[in-house]
């Protein structure tokens, strides 16, 4: 295969990574933005989404119906678990920044080890609901000017296209929720000044539980979407958490637009560099990028400077 088609293939793989990463990082960013909580357990919600997808799909007997059911059930269950963790643990720490980090580290291990005990150490796949190969064309300059041809190996599956589309749709929905609904207005008011939100009748504790649940549900959704591509494993949350933090720091903590831009940047470069060089180099470069952002633009690409 020539360089051009090869680059396109790598970009498409990168776009899938970017889509999943954007969903997960949006959840992390939402939780930090509204609650000022650095949720170290976020990767485990992603893992839990993937594992639950396998559980639900196999209970439903596999197939497309099983996957669709998992897509609906797993984020709801994970969101409920997270909201319960907020009400029982984080609330009683008064959302103190340092203590919530320690608490979410604890939550990380609890979720991880419970999964190991219940689900086991195996990596298990979920069958995608559809998985047609779509061959992609490339342009070539022949005798009669540019002409299309279908290089061998340049293709994507319909499921991967679905992941990209689904992530874009969910993110658009999240943006609409934040900017055009009553609950979004309550969340933004809480984010801007929690005390004043309370002084105007906004039940901040309930908003926090909702936001923590919503953030976890986004991670779980990312987990469900990835599981037909990557398989569910109890340790899969670690790498995903690292990449999410990288994305959120580069994008600017609490900024949805910045998160999406950074997810595309990191996801695409991760895909391309992994294909042409090695996945390790991709991680090294991403981490280096974070270092540069922290030095030269600590508030991130789209974040606001602290006033």
């Amino acid at each position, binding site marked *: 295969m020539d360089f051009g088609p090869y680059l396109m293939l790598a970009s498409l793989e990168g776009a899938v990574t970017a889509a999943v990463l954007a969903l997960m990082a949006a959840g992390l960013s939402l939780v930090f933005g509204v609650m000022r909580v650095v949720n170290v357990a976020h990767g485990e919600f992603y893992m839990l989404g993937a594992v639950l997808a396998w559980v639900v799909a196999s209970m439903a007997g596999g197939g497309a119906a099983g996957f669709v059911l998992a897509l609906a059930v797993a984020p709801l269950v994970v969101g409920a678990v997270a909201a319960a963790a907020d009400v029982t643990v984080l609330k009683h720490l008064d959302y103190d920044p340092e203590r919530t980090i320690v608490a979410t580290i604890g939550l990380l291990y609890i979720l991880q080890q419970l999964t190991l005990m219940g689900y086991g150490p195996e990596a298990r796949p979920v069958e995608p609901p559809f998985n047609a190969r779509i061959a992609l064309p490339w342009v070539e300059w022949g005798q009669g000017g540019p002409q299309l041809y279908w290089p061998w190996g340049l293709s994507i599956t319909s499921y991967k296209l679905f992941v990209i589309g689904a992530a874009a749709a969910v993110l658009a929905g999240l943006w609409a929720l934040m900017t055009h609904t009553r609950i979004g*207005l309550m969340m933004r008011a809480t984010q801007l000044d929690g005390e*004043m939100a*309370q*002084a105007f009748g906004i039940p901040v504790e309930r908003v926090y539980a909702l936001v923590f649940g919503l953030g976890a549900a986004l991670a779980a959704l990312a987990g469900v979407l990835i599981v037909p591509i990557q398989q569910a494993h109890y340790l899969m949350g670690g790498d995903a958490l690292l990449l999410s933090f990288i994305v959120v720091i580069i994008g600017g903590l609490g900024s949805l637009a910045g998160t999406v831009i950074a997810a595309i940047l990191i996801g695409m470069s991760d895909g391309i560099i992994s294909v042409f060089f090695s996945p390790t180099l991709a991680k090294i470069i991403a981490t280096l990028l974070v270092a540069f952002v922290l030095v030269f633009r600590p508030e991130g690409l789209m974040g606001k400077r602290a006033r």
Partner: protein
Amino acid sequence: MLEVRGIDAGYGPVQVLRGLSLSARPGEITCLLGRNGAGKTTTMKVIMGLLPLKAGRITLDGADIGSLPAHEVPRRGIGYIPQGRRLFSELTVAQNLEIGMRTRRSPPQVLDRVLELFPRLADRMGQRAETLSGGEQQMLATARALCLEPRVLLLDEPTEGLQPSMIEAIRQVVIRMKAEGVAILLVEQRLDAVLSAADRVVFIENGRARETVDAADLRADPAVLKRYLGV
């Protein structure tokens, strides 16, 4: 009537209020006077439920509001105009007012009436609150609280840093609210404003209410001011 009886409160281990009592009657302006750090702002925060009450009772028309969760307090009809305005800075004027309107699910006419009081806000509904001038921000903070149709209005230094025309505009609104029978609790540093508008003055010292004086008596004999404020 808002009644505060023997409250203790503070920030964590630091106690600020010690057995403070006061009351705010409908149709009257009750003014809190005292030196910096005496506990005026703390009193307002405790009334709003934003700081925990360690002892004492707070009642509104006989109903206990001191034990309510913070978000329930404004729903009983207490409008808060905090020091430094504390608007939702990135939200628009309209959204800031919407949050006020939703606190008690006020009917839409309330917003029309509030905008009648502050016509300048009506022209800036789509603008973000942080882009308003200081005076307009104070108008918005006041309008946001009036959207509750409050029975009690808490104003914490509403005229701080404003030009005289703005101070007068805010004063006119406060006097109008008083005429409509709202109980007004005011923290104000400018003595001339206090003496001209207040009905009663509560002197606060070291977290205790030392004395409550009719403003008319204070105008006749300002010697008390010297005792508590040293002016």
